[in-house]
């Protein structure tokens, strides 16, 4: 979850202000955990990746 741009690092912004970063496999786990624990959202891998954007 470094703030420095890294190759292959994707970013998802949650409406609550949390910004999640990681490689594809890392990000899916991070976002699914946050979504369920904080918002009771059951996010699929596809949903997470559809919201992910490369870190600029």
């Amino acid at each position: 979850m470094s703030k420095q741009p890294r190759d292959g690092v994707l970013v998802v912004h949650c409406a609550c202000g949390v910004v999640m970063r990681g490689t594809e496999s890392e990000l899916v786990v991070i976002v699914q955990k946050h979504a369920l624990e904080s918002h009771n959202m059951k996010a699929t891998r596809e949903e997470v990746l559809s919201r992910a954007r490369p870190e600029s």
Partner: protein
Amino acid sequence: MESADRPPWGTEGPVQAEVFVVRLRGDRLELTGPCGPDAWYIESHAEDDPMELVKRLSTNLMGPPLLVHSTSWRRGASGVILSFLVVVGEDQASELASVPIGRAELARNTAADAATGIATAQVVEHALRHVAWLAQDDEAVRAALSPAWLAVLANYVPEPFRHLGR
């Protein structure tokens, strides 16, 4: 490029809980929570009891709340929004960002119509007035709150009725 092409990902669905987490710091009420002072949104699915859900997630993220109060509902963009007030202790989840709570006029309309626009501050004002009434009427609520909390809530009781309380 991170977010310029689409809005942040948020909760969806026909029923969502909107949670306002409040703590007393000194003699001032503060809004705080997992989303800082912003409202915290939780999806409530068909199998969920919204009250239990709010209590469980609050406990998991901030520790056991002192009070969970279902205060109001309104129609939202994609369904019904259930508003909750969650009271946490002064030293609970103190790392979370917070802002002082100011007073607001309530959102009103005719006697048979919902208000057409309801601001966040008005939902919080309504919630605190409701809890202020419960603090006088409900022993469980009164017992859950400290004397300092009850003193602050006394300011939320309509003036003509203040003498009726304890």
